Protein backbone atom coordinates (compact mmCIF):
# COMPACT_ATOMS: atom_id res chain seq x y z
CA UNK A 1 0.00 0.00 0.00
CA UNK A 2 1.33 3.37 -1.01
CA UNK A 3 2.04 5.83 1.77
CA UNK A 4 1.77 9.59 1.99
CA UNK A 5 5.47 10.04 1.52
CA UNK A 6 5.19 8.61 -2.00
CA UNK A 7 2.82 11.37 -2.91
CA UNK A 8 3.85 14.41 -0.95
CA UNK A 9 7.59 14.38 -1.69
CA UNK A 10 9.62 17.32 -0.48
CA UNK A 11 10.07 18.69 -3.99
CA UNK A 12 6.33 18.61 -4.51
CA UNK A 13 5.60 20.45 -1.30
CA UNK A 14 8.25 22.99 -2.23
CA UNK A 15 6.75 23.67 -5.66
CA UNK A 16 3.29 23.78 -4.09
CA UNK A 17 4.34 26.35 -1.49
CA UNK A 18 6.49 28.39 -3.87
CA UNK A 19 5.11 27.87 -7.33
CA UNK A 20 7.42 28.86 -10.18
CA UNK A 21 6.29 30.96 -13.13
CA UNK A 22 3.05 32.02 -11.56
CA UNK A 23 1.27 34.99 -13.11
CA UNK A 24 -0.13 36.20 -16.39
CA UNK A 25 1.33 37.24 -19.74
CA UNK A 26 -0.18 39.81 -22.02
CA UNK A 27 -2.33 37.98 -24.53
CA UNK A 28 -1.65 38.57 -27.38
CA UNK A 29 1.19 38.20 -27.98
CA UNK A 30 0.99 35.26 -25.54
CA UNK A 31 -1.53 32.49 -26.09
CA UNK A 32 -3.93 31.91 -23.23
CA UNK A 33 -5.33 28.41 -22.68
CA UNK A 34 -7.76 27.29 -19.99
CA UNK A 35 -7.90 23.81 -18.58
CA UNK A 36 -10.07 22.32 -15.91
CA UNK A 37 -10.74 19.06 -14.21
CA UNK A 38 -14.49 18.53 -14.18
CA UNK A 39 -14.25 15.89 -11.49
CA UNK A 40 -12.73 18.08 -8.80
CA UNK A 41 -13.14 21.60 -10.11
CA UNK A 42 -9.43 22.42 -10.42
CA UNK A 43 -8.72 25.14 -12.94
CA UNK A 44 -5.60 26.39 -14.67
CA UNK A 45 -4.74 29.06 -17.21
CA UNK A 46 -1.51 28.64 -19.16
CA UNK A 47 0.11 31.54 -21.04
CA UNK A 48 2.72 30.70 -23.66
CA UNK A 49 5.07 32.65 -25.86
CA UNK A 50 6.81 30.75 -28.61
CA UNK A 51 9.49 32.52 -30.53
CA UNK A 52 11.35 30.96 -33.43
CA UNK A 53 10.64 27.43 -32.28
CA UNK A 54 11.49 28.10 -28.66
CA UNK A 55 9.09 28.29 -25.72
CA UNK A 56 10.54 31.52 -24.46
CA UNK A 57 8.04 32.20 -21.72
CA UNK A 58 5.34 30.43 -19.76
CA UNK A 59 3.16 31.64 -16.90
CA UNK A 60 0.22 30.14 -15.11
CA UNK A 61 -2.67 31.03 -12.83
CA UNK A 62 -5.39 28.91 -11.35
CA UNK A 63 -6.29 26.96 -8.28
CA UNK A 64 -6.02 23.36 -7.34
CA UNK A 65 -4.59 20.82 -4.97
CA UNK A 66 -0.94 20.43 -4.11
CA UNK A 67 -0.43 17.83 -6.80
CA UNK A 68 -1.94 19.85 -9.62
CA UNK A 69 -0.18 23.04 -8.50
CA UNK A 70 3.17 21.37 -8.00
CA UNK A 71 2.90 19.51 -11.28
CA UNK A 72 2.17 22.79 -13.06
CA UNK A 73 5.12 24.48 -11.41
CA UNK A 74 7.47 21.57 -12.12
CA UNK A 75 6.26 21.54 -15.69
CA UNK A 76 6.87 25.23 -16.20
CA UNK A 77 10.39 24.92 -14.86
CA UNK A 78 11.05 21.94 -17.08
CA UNK A 79 9.91 23.49 -20.36
CA UNK A 80 10.61 27.20 -20.07
CA UNK A 81 13.22 28.38 -22.53
CA UNK A 82 13.37 25.02 -24.26
CA UNK A 83 13.07 24.38 -28.01
CA UNK A 84 9.67 22.94 -28.88
CA UNK A 85 11.20 19.59 -29.75
CA UNK A 86 12.57 19.35 -26.20
CA UNK A 87 9.22 20.45 -24.81
CA UNK A 88 7.46 17.68 -26.70
CA UNK A 89 9.95 15.18 -25.46
CA UNK A 90 9.31 16.29 -21.90
CA UNK A 91 5.60 15.92 -22.45
CA UNK A 92 6.03 12.40 -23.80
CA UNK A 93 8.21 11.40 -20.90
CA UNK A 94 5.74 12.77 -18.42
CA UNK A 95 2.89 10.95 -20.14
CA UNK A 96 4.81 7.70 -20.04
CA UNK A 97 5.37 8.22 -16.33
CA UNK A 98 1.66 8.67 -15.72
CA UNK A 99 0.51 5.67 -17.73
CA UNK A 100 2.69 3.18 -15.90
CA UNK A 101 -0.11 2.57 -13.50
CA UNK A 102 -2.86 2.04 -16.04
CA UNK A 103 -0.68 -0.44 -17.87
CA UNK A 104 0.19 -2.22 -14.66
CA UNK A 105 -3.52 -2.49 -13.85
CA UNK A 106 -4.09 -4.17 -17.15
CA UNK A 107 -1.26 -6.54 -16.44
CA UNK A 108 0.72 -5.38 -19.45
CA UNK A 109 4.38 -4.62 -19.42
CA UNK A 110 5.27 -0.98 -19.99
CA UNK A 111 8.42 0.64 -21.18
CA UNK A 112 10.35 1.66 -18.15
CA UNK A 113 10.76 5.39 -17.90
CA UNK A 114 14.30 6.56 -17.54
CA UNK A 115 14.01 8.51 -14.32
CA UNK A 116 17.37 10.18 -14.68
CA UNK A 117 16.20 11.99 -17.76
CA UNK A 118 13.32 13.40 -15.74
CA UNK A 119 15.21 15.53 -13.27
CA UNK A 120 12.89 17.07 -10.70
CA UNK A 121 9.87 15.74 -12.57
CA UNK A 122 10.70 12.33 -11.15
CA UNK A 123 9.13 13.54 -7.92
CA UNK A 124 5.75 13.11 -9.59
CA UNK A 125 6.35 9.41 -10.03
CA UNK A 126 4.63 8.56 -6.76
CA UNK A 127 1.36 9.92 -8.11
CA UNK A 128 0.78 6.84 -10.24
CA UNK A 129 0.23 4.88 -7.07
CA UNK A 130 -2.80 7.09 -6.42
CA UNK A 131 -4.80 6.63 -9.61
CA UNK A 132 -7.40 9.24 -8.74
CA UNK A 133 -4.69 11.87 -8.39
CA UNK A 134 -3.23 11.23 -11.85
CA UNK A 135 -5.87 13.58 -13.26
CA UNK A 136 -4.59 16.27 -10.88
CA UNK A 137 -1.03 15.86 -12.11
CA UNK A 138 -1.92 15.84 -15.78
CA UNK A 139 -4.14 18.94 -15.85
CA UNK A 140 -1.34 21.44 -16.49
CA UNK A 141 0.30 19.21 -19.05
CA UNK A 142 -2.86 18.67 -21.02
CA UNK A 143 -3.45 22.39 -21.02
CA UNK A 144 0.09 22.96 -22.27
CA UNK A 145 -0.46 20.46 -25.07
CA UNK A 146 -3.63 22.28 -26.03
CA UNK A 147 -1.85 25.63 -25.99
CA UNK A 148 0.96 24.37 -28.24
CA UNK A 149 -1.68 22.89 -30.51
CA UNK A 150 -3.21 26.35 -30.91
CA UNK A 151 0.15 27.85 -31.79
CA UNK A 152 1.16 25.24 -34.35
CA UNK A 153 -1.54 22.69 -35.08
CA UNK A 154 -0.11 19.25 -35.74
Amino acid at each position, binding site marked *: MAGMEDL*YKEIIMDHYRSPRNRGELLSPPATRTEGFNPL*CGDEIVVYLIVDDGVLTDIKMTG*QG*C*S*ISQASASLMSAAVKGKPLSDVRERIDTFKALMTVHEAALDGEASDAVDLRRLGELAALQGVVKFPVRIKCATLAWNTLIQGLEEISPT
Partner: protein
Amino acid sequence: MSGYDPALVRADFPLLGRVIHDHPIAYLDSGATSISPASVITAMSHYYENSHANVHRAVYVTAEEATATYEGARRRVGRFIGAPHPDEEVVFTKNATEAFNLFVKSWGASQLRPGDVVVLSEMEHHANIVPWFQLRDQIGIEIRFIPVSDDFRLDLSGLDELLVGAKVVSVTGMSNVLGTINPVRELADRAHAVGAILVVDAAQSVAHSVTNVVEMGADAIMFSAHKMLGPTGLGVLWVRREILSAMPPFLGGGGMIADVTLEGFTAASGVTRFEAGTPPIAEAAGLSAAVDYLEKLGMAAIADHEAQLTGHTLERLATEFAGRVRILGPSTLEKRGGVISLDVEGVHPHDLAQVLDQFGVCVRPGHHCAKPLMRRFGVVATARVSFGPYSTLGDLDALFDGLHHAVGVFG
Protein backbone atom coordinates in the same frame (compact mmCIF):
# COMPACT_ATOMS: atom_id res chain seq x y z
CA MET B 1 -31.73 7.88 21.90
CA SER B 2 -32.70 5.07 24.21
CA GLY B 3 -32.24 1.76 22.47
CA TYR B 4 -30.05 3.09 19.69
CA ASP B 5 -26.67 1.51 20.09
CA PRO B 6 -24.28 2.65 17.34
CA ALA B 7 -21.83 -0.12 18.16
CA LEU B 8 -24.51 -2.73 17.59
CA VAL B 9 -25.62 -1.04 14.38
CA ARG B 10 -22.03 -0.91 13.19
CA ALA B 11 -21.72 -4.66 13.61
CA ASP B 12 -24.43 -5.16 11.00
CA PHE B 13 -22.25 -3.62 8.27
CA PRO B 14 -19.59 -5.99 6.94
CA LEU B 15 -17.60 -3.21 5.29
CA LEU B 16 -16.95 -1.57 8.65
CA GLY B 17 -14.72 -4.51 9.53
CA ARG B 18 -12.12 -3.23 7.10
CA VAL B 19 -8.82 -1.87 8.25
CA ILE B 20 -7.34 0.92 6.11
CA HIS B 21 -3.70 1.93 6.54
CA ASP B 22 -3.79 0.21 9.95
CA HIS B 23 -6.88 2.14 11.05
CA PRO B 24 -10.42 0.83 11.34
CA ILE B 25 -12.34 2.39 8.49
CA ALA B 26 -14.24 5.58 9.39
CA TYR B 27 -16.79 5.82 6.62
CA LEU B 28 -17.92 9.45 6.47
CA ASP B 29 -19.12 9.61 2.86
CA SER B 30 -22.74 8.51 3.17
CA GLY B 31 -23.80 11.55 1.19
CA ALA B 32 -22.16 10.04 -1.87
CA THR B 33 -23.31 6.51 -1.22
CA SER B 34 -24.20 4.63 1.92
CA ILE B 35 -22.90 1.21 2.80
CA SER B 36 -25.14 -1.82 3.23
CA PRO B 37 -25.99 -4.06 6.16
CA ALA B 38 -25.53 -7.80 5.70
CA SER B 39 -29.29 -8.24 5.35
CA VAL B 40 -29.31 -6.19 2.14
CA ILE B 41 -26.40 -8.08 0.63
CA THR B 42 -27.99 -11.39 1.59
CA ALA B 43 -31.34 -10.40 0.10
CA MET B 44 -29.70 -9.93 -3.27
CA SER B 45 -27.64 -13.12 -3.09
CA HIS B 46 -30.80 -14.90 -2.08
CA TYR B 47 -32.51 -13.73 -5.25
CA TYR B 48 -29.59 -14.80 -7.41
CA GLU B 49 -29.29 -18.17 -5.70
CA ASN B 50 -32.98 -19.01 -5.50
CA SER B 51 -35.31 -16.90 -7.60
CA HIS B 52 -33.16 -15.56 -10.41
CA ALA B 53 -35.72 -15.21 -13.19
CA ASN B 54 -37.24 -12.44 -15.20
CA VAL B 55 -40.45 -10.81 -14.02
CA HIS B 56 -43.99 -10.35 -15.27
CA ARG B 57 -44.35 -12.83 -18.08
CA ALA B 58 -43.73 -16.33 -16.89
CA VAL B 59 -45.70 -18.80 -14.82
CA TYR B 60 -43.00 -20.99 -13.31
CA VAL B 61 -42.20 -20.82 -9.63
CA THR B 62 -38.96 -18.83 -9.64
CA ALA B 63 -40.46 -16.30 -12.06
CA GLU B 64 -43.47 -15.88 -9.79
CA GLU B 65 -41.11 -15.34 -6.88
CA ALA B 66 -39.12 -12.79 -8.87
CA THR B 67 -42.30 -10.93 -9.76
CA ALA B 68 -43.50 -10.98 -6.16
CA THR B 69 -40.09 -9.71 -5.02
CA TYR B 70 -40.09 -6.88 -7.54
CA GLU B 71 -43.69 -5.78 -7.07
CA GLY B 72 -43.36 -6.30 -3.33
CA ALA B 73 -40.46 -3.84 -3.33
CA ARG B 74 -42.64 -1.29 -5.07
CA ARG B 75 -45.22 -1.56 -2.29
CA ARG B 76 -42.58 -1.66 0.41
CA VAL B 77 -40.83 1.52 -0.67
CA GLY B 78 -44.17 3.17 -1.44
CA ARG B 79 -45.33 2.63 2.11
CA PHE B 80 -41.98 3.83 3.42
CA ILE B 81 -42.52 7.25 1.86
CA GLY B 82 -46.22 7.37 2.66
CA ALA B 83 -47.37 7.01 -0.96
CA PRO B 84 -51.16 6.79 -1.08
CA HIS B 85 -51.11 4.36 -4.04
CA PRO B 86 -47.73 2.58 -4.30
CA ASP B 87 -48.73 0.31 -7.18
CA GLU B 88 -49.75 3.25 -9.30
CA GLU B 89 -47.21 5.84 -8.23
CA VAL B 90 -43.80 4.25 -7.65
CA VAL B 91 -41.58 3.91 -10.72
CA PHE B 92 -38.24 2.13 -10.53
CA THR B 93 -35.37 3.75 -12.43
CA LYS B 94 -31.64 3.16 -12.41
CA ASN B 95 -30.85 6.04 -10.07
CA ALA B 96 -32.25 9.37 -8.88
CA THR B 97 -30.73 11.03 -11.93
CA GLU B 98 -32.73 8.87 -14.32
CA ALA B 99 -35.80 9.59 -12.20
CA PHE B 100 -35.25 13.31 -12.81
CA ASN B 101 -34.69 12.78 -16.52
CA LEU B 102 -37.80 10.65 -16.80
CA PHE B 103 -39.94 13.21 -15.05
CA VAL B 104 -38.53 16.23 -16.88
CA LYS B 105 -38.62 14.60 -20.30
CA SER B 106 -42.04 12.99 -19.87
CA TRP B 107 -44.02 15.39 -17.71
CA GLY B 108 -42.01 18.47 -18.61
CA ALA B 109 -41.87 17.91 -22.34
CA SER B 110 -45.59 17.12 -22.55
CA GLN B 111 -46.97 19.69 -20.09
CA LEU B 112 -44.73 22.72 -20.48
CA ARG B 113 -44.98 25.30 -23.23
CA PRO B 114 -42.40 27.79 -24.48
CA GLY B 115 -42.05 30.56 -21.92
CA ASP B 116 -43.34 28.50 -18.98
CA VAL B 117 -41.24 29.01 -15.91
CA VAL B 118 -39.37 26.34 -13.94
CA VAL B 119 -38.10 27.43 -10.52
CA LEU B 120 -35.05 25.65 -9.14
CA SER B 121 -32.62 26.77 -6.45
CA GLU B 122 -28.97 27.69 -6.43
CA MET B 123 -28.23 24.76 -4.15
CA GLU B 124 -29.47 22.04 -6.50
CA HIS B 125 -27.53 18.96 -7.48
CA HIS B 126 -26.78 18.77 -11.21
CA ALA B 127 -29.38 16.01 -11.46
CA ASN B 128 -32.03 18.66 -10.77
CA ILE B 129 -30.50 21.23 -13.12
CA VAL B 130 -29.10 19.65 -16.27
CA PRO B 131 -32.28 17.81 -17.39
CA TRP B 132 -34.18 21.11 -17.13
CA PHE B 133 -31.49 22.84 -19.21
CA GLN B 134 -31.82 20.07 -21.78
CA LEU B 135 -35.57 20.63 -21.89
CA ARG B 136 -35.09 24.38 -22.15
CA ASP B 137 -32.74 23.94 -25.09
CA GLN B 138 -35.40 21.80 -26.71
CA ILE B 139 -38.65 23.65 -26.09
CA GLY B 140 -37.71 27.06 -24.71
CA ILE B 141 -38.87 27.15 -21.10
CA GLU B 142 -37.47 29.72 -18.69
CA ILE B 143 -35.45 28.59 -15.69
CA ARG B 144 -35.13 30.68 -12.56
CA PHE B 145 -33.11 30.01 -9.43
CA ILE B 146 -34.07 30.72 -5.86
CA PRO B 147 -30.91 32.35 -4.45
CA VAL B 148 -29.07 31.04 -1.42
CA SER B 149 -28.43 33.51 1.40
CA ASP B 150 -25.13 34.09 3.15
CA ASP B 151 -26.37 31.95 6.00
CA PHE B 152 -26.78 29.03 3.61
CA ARG B 153 -30.59 29.06 3.41
CA LEU B 154 -32.94 29.47 0.50
CA ASP B 155 -33.62 33.19 0.24
CA LEU B 156 -37.38 33.24 -0.19
CA SER B 157 -37.72 37.03 -0.01
CA GLY B 158 -38.20 37.31 -3.79
CA LEU B 159 -40.17 34.12 -4.22
CA ASP B 160 -43.40 35.80 -5.28
CA GLU B 161 -41.69 37.36 -8.30
CA LEU B 162 -39.88 34.13 -9.12
CA LEU B 163 -43.20 32.29 -9.10
CA VAL B 164 -44.83 34.49 -11.73
CA GLY B 165 -45.55 32.17 -14.63
CA ALA B 166 -44.17 29.15 -12.79
CA LYS B 167 -45.51 25.70 -13.63
CA VAL B 168 -43.11 23.78 -11.45
CA VAL B 169 -40.89 24.37 -8.44
CA SER B 170 -38.19 21.73 -8.08
CA VAL B 171 -35.91 21.87 -5.05
CA THR B 172 -33.87 19.60 -2.88
CA GLY B 173 -35.24 18.51 0.47
CA MET B 174 -31.74 18.66 1.88
CA SER B 175 -28.61 20.09 0.29
CA ASN B 176 -25.90 17.52 -0.41
CA VAL B 177 -23.26 20.21 0.21
CA LEU B 178 -24.60 22.52 2.90
CA GLY B 179 -26.70 20.08 4.87
CA THR B 180 -29.46 22.68 4.83
CA ILE B 181 -32.97 21.25 5.19
CA ASN B 182 -35.40 23.24 3.09
CA PRO B 183 -38.95 24.27 4.03
CA VAL B 184 -40.61 21.88 1.63
CA ARG B 185 -44.14 22.24 2.98
CA GLU B 186 -44.02 26.01 2.65
CA LEU B 187 -42.68 25.74 -0.88
CA ALA B 188 -45.43 23.27 -1.73
CA ASP B 189 -48.13 25.61 -0.49
CA ARG B 190 -46.70 28.60 -2.31
CA ALA B 191 -46.17 26.65 -5.52
CA HIS B 192 -49.68 25.25 -5.39
CA ALA B 193 -51.08 28.71 -4.71
CA VAL B 194 -49.90 29.82 -8.16
CA GLY B 195 -50.91 26.57 -9.83
CA ALA B 196 -47.41 25.11 -10.00
CA ILE B 197 -46.45 21.62 -8.89
CA LEU B 198 -43.72 20.86 -6.37
CA VAL B 199 -40.95 18.40 -7.11
CA VAL B 200 -38.60 17.39 -4.29
CA ASP B 201 -35.14 15.91 -4.66
CA ALA B 202 -35.22 13.50 -1.73
CA ALA B 203 -31.88 11.85 -2.52
CA GLN B 204 -30.17 13.25 0.57
CA SER B 205 -33.07 13.26 2.99
CA VAL B 206 -34.81 9.93 2.46
CA ALA B 207 -32.41 7.83 4.53
CA HIS B 208 -31.98 10.30 7.35
CA SER B 209 -35.46 11.37 8.47
CA VAL B 210 -39.10 10.40 8.07
CA THR B 211 -40.42 10.96 4.54
CA ASN B 212 -44.12 11.39 3.91
CA VAL B 213 -45.04 12.59 0.46
CA VAL B 214 -48.51 13.64 1.53
CA GLU B 215 -47.35 15.70 4.49
CA MET B 216 -44.63 17.27 2.36
CA GLY B 217 -47.23 18.31 -0.15
CA ALA B 218 -45.01 17.05 -2.95
CA ASP B 219 -46.25 16.12 -6.40
CA ALA B 220 -43.15 14.12 -7.31
CA ILE B 221 -39.99 13.03 -5.48
CA MET B 222 -36.80 11.27 -6.55
CA PHE B 223 -34.19 9.27 -4.70
CA SER B 224 -31.63 6.47 -5.05
CA ALA B 225 -31.43 3.10 -3.33
CA HIS B 226 -27.66 3.40 -2.96
CA LYS B 227 -27.95 6.36 -0.59
CA MET B 228 -30.36 4.50 1.73
CA LEU B 229 -28.32 1.40 2.57
CA GLY B 230 -29.48 -0.26 -0.63
CA PRO B 231 -27.72 -1.34 -3.81
CA THR B 232 -26.39 0.54 -6.79
CA GLY B 233 -28.41 0.41 -10.01
CA LEU B 234 -31.81 1.40 -8.60
CA GLY B 235 -33.58 4.71 -8.24
CA VAL B 236 -37.12 5.65 -7.35
CA LEU B 237 -39.52 8.15 -8.84
CA TRP B 238 -42.73 8.76 -6.99
CA VAL B 239 -45.37 10.82 -8.77
CA ARG B 240 -48.84 11.61 -7.51
CA ARG B 241 -51.33 9.40 -9.35
CA GLU B 242 -53.27 12.21 -11.00
CA ILE B 243 -50.07 13.59 -12.50
CA LEU B 244 -48.47 10.29 -13.38
CA SER B 245 -51.49 9.09 -15.29
CA ALA B 246 -51.11 11.95 -17.79
CA MET B 247 -47.42 11.36 -18.43
CA PRO B 248 -46.36 9.85 -21.76
CA PRO B 249 -43.76 7.08 -21.75
CA PHE B 250 -40.05 7.86 -21.72
CA LEU B 251 -37.85 4.92 -22.72
CA GLY B 252 -39.41 2.60 -25.30
CA GLY B 253 -39.10 -1.17 -25.44
CA GLY B 254 -40.41 -4.38 -23.98
CA GLY B 255 -42.68 -4.32 -20.97
CA MET B 256 -43.96 -0.78 -21.49
CA ILE B 257 -46.31 -1.47 -24.40
CA ALA B 258 -49.90 -2.47 -24.85
CA ASP B 259 -49.35 -3.33 -28.49
CA VAL B 260 -46.74 -3.04 -31.23
CA THR B 261 -47.37 -3.41 -34.95
CA LEU B 262 -45.35 -2.55 -38.03
CA GLU B 263 -47.13 0.80 -38.01
CA GLY B 264 -46.65 1.97 -34.41
CA PHE B 265 -47.14 1.19 -30.77
CA THR B 266 -49.49 1.93 -27.91
CA ALA B 267 -48.14 2.32 -24.41
CA ALA B 268 -49.28 0.28 -21.44
CA SER B 269 -51.18 1.99 -18.68
CA GLY B 270 -49.80 2.20 -15.17
CA VAL B 271 -46.28 2.49 -13.87
CA THR B 272 -44.89 -0.26 -16.11
CA ARG B 273 -45.19 2.14 -19.03
CA PHE B 274 -42.10 3.84 -17.58
CA GLU B 275 -40.13 0.66 -17.01
CA ALA B 276 -38.93 -0.50 -20.41
CA GLY B 277 -36.76 -3.59 -20.52
CA THR B 278 -35.73 -6.00 -17.82
CA PRO B 279 -35.90 -4.07 -14.54
CA PRO B 280 -33.41 -4.09 -11.65
CA ILE B 281 -34.91 -7.10 -9.88
CA ALA B 282 -32.12 -8.09 -7.50
CA GLU B 283 -31.72 -4.42 -6.68
CA ALA B 284 -35.40 -4.18 -5.78
CA ALA B 285 -34.92 -7.10 -3.40
CA GLY B 286 -32.00 -5.22 -1.86
CA LEU B 287 -34.01 -2.04 -1.49
CA SER B 288 -36.81 -3.88 0.29
CA ALA B 289 -34.31 -5.23 2.78
CA ALA B 290 -32.76 -1.77 3.19
CA VAL B 291 -36.14 -0.25 3.97
CA ASP B 292 -36.83 -3.03 6.44
CA TYR B 293 -33.53 -2.30 8.13
CA LEU B 294 -34.09 1.46 8.25
CA GLU B 295 -37.52 1.00 9.75
CA LYS B 296 -36.20 -1.47 12.28
CA LEU B 297 -33.79 1.19 13.52
CA GLY B 298 -36.53 3.79 13.20
CA MET B 299 -36.18 6.90 11.08
CA ALA B 300 -36.68 9.22 14.05
CA ALA B 301 -33.96 7.42 16.00
CA ILE B 302 -31.60 7.65 13.03
CA ALA B 303 -32.29 11.37 12.73
CA ASP B 304 -31.59 11.84 16.44
CA HIS B 305 -28.39 9.88 16.26
CA GLU B 306 -27.08 11.78 13.26
CA ALA B 307 -28.07 15.10 14.80
CA GLN B 308 -26.02 14.24 17.84
CA LEU B 309 -22.97 13.46 15.71
CA THR B 310 -23.49 16.61 13.68
CA GLY B 311 -23.74 18.76 16.79
CA HIS B 312 -20.62 17.18 18.18
CA THR B 313 -18.70 17.84 14.97
CA LEU B 314 -19.82 21.46 14.72
CA GLU B 315 -18.72 22.03 18.31
CA ARG B 316 -15.30 20.47 17.90
CA LEU B 317 -14.72 22.39 14.69
CA ALA B 318 -15.60 25.62 16.45
CA THR B 319 -13.34 24.97 19.41
CA GLU B 320 -10.40 23.21 17.73
CA PHE B 321 -10.30 24.97 14.36
CA ALA B 322 -11.80 28.39 14.96
CA GLY B 323 -10.72 30.72 12.18
CA ARG B 324 -9.00 27.92 10.25
CA VAL B 325 -11.98 25.97 9.02
CA ARG B 326 -14.97 27.50 7.34
CA ILE B 327 -18.11 25.41 7.31
CA LEU B 328 -20.09 25.77 4.12
CA GLY B 329 -23.47 25.36 5.72
CA PRO B 330 -25.46 26.25 8.83
CA SER B 331 -23.33 26.28 11.96
CA THR B 332 -26.10 25.13 14.28
CA LEU B 333 -28.31 22.06 14.28
CA GLU B 334 -31.42 23.96 13.32
CA LYS B 335 -32.87 22.72 10.03
CA ARG B 336 -29.70 20.97 8.99
CA GLY B 337 -28.75 17.36 8.48
CA GLY B 338 -25.58 15.34 8.82
CA VAL B 339 -23.66 16.69 5.84
CA ILE B 340 -20.79 19.05 6.69
CA SER B 341 -18.71 20.72 4.00
CA LEU B 342 -15.31 21.97 5.09
CA ASP B 343 -13.15 24.66 3.59
CA VAL B 344 -9.83 24.42 5.42
CA GLU B 345 -7.51 27.37 5.03
CA GLY B 346 -4.43 26.44 3.07
CA VAL B 347 -5.43 22.82 2.57
CA HIS B 348 -7.02 21.91 -0.71
CA PRO B 349 -9.94 19.47 -0.25
CA HIS B 350 -8.16 16.89 -2.37
CA ASP B 351 -5.11 17.02 -0.16
CA LEU B 352 -7.22 16.96 2.95
CA ALA B 353 -9.08 13.89 1.77
CA GLN B 354 -5.81 12.23 0.89
CA VAL B 355 -4.37 12.84 4.36
CA LEU B 356 -7.60 11.66 5.98
CA ASP B 357 -7.41 8.46 3.96
CA GLN B 358 -4.18 7.70 5.77
CA PHE B 359 -6.23 7.74 8.98
CA GLY B 360 -8.82 5.38 7.51
CA VAL B 361 -11.23 8.29 7.15
CA CYS B 362 -13.40 8.43 4.02
CA VAL B 363 -14.58 11.91 3.08
CA ARG B 364 -15.33 13.33 -0.34
CA PRO B 365 -13.49 16.25 -1.92
CA GLY B 366 -14.92 18.03 -4.93
CA HIS B 367 -17.80 20.13 -6.19
CA HIS B 368 -20.35 17.47 -5.23
CA CYS B 369 -22.20 17.98 -8.51
CA ALA B 370 -23.31 21.41 -7.36
CA LYS B 371 -21.10 23.76 -9.36
CA PRO B 372 -23.50 26.72 -9.27
CA LEU B 373 -23.48 26.53 -5.47
CA MET B 374 -19.67 26.30 -5.39
CA ARG B 375 -19.45 29.46 -7.50
CA ARG B 376 -21.98 31.15 -5.24
CA PHE B 377 -19.57 30.72 -2.34
CA GLY B 378 -16.39 31.29 -4.28
CA VAL B 379 -14.83 27.85 -3.88
CA VAL B 380 -14.01 25.20 -6.44
CA ALA B 381 -14.38 22.35 -4.00
CA THR B 382 -15.02 21.39 -0.39
CA ALA B 383 -14.19 18.34 1.68
CA ARG B 384 -17.47 16.85 2.76
CA VAL B 385 -18.14 14.79 5.86
CA SER B 386 -21.47 12.98 5.89
CA PHE B 387 -23.08 10.55 8.31
CA GLY B 388 -25.12 7.40 8.20
CA PRO B 389 -26.92 5.36 10.85
CA TYR B 390 -23.67 3.42 11.42
CA SER B 391 -21.51 6.49 12.12
CA THR B 392 -19.98 6.73 15.57
CA LEU B 393 -18.05 9.07 17.80
CA GLY B 394 -15.03 6.90 17.05
CA ASP B 395 -15.28 7.95 13.40
CA LEU B 396 -15.19 11.54 14.52
CA ASP B 397 -12.10 11.00 16.62
CA ALA B 398 -10.33 9.63 13.57
CA LEU B 399 -11.59 12.56 11.51
CA PHE B 400 -10.23 15.10 13.97
CA ASP B 401 -6.89 13.31 14.28
CA GLY B 402 -6.60 13.55 10.53
CA LEU B 403 -7.69 17.17 10.39
CA HIS B 404 -5.06 18.20 12.90
CA HIS B 405 -2.43 16.31 10.97
CA ALA B 406 -3.41 17.84 7.64
CA VAL B 407 -3.31 21.33 9.01
CA GLY B 408 0.11 20.53 10.38
CA VAL B 409 1.45 19.26 7.05
CA PHE B 410 -0.03 21.92 4.80
CA GLY B 411 -0.54 24.80 7.20
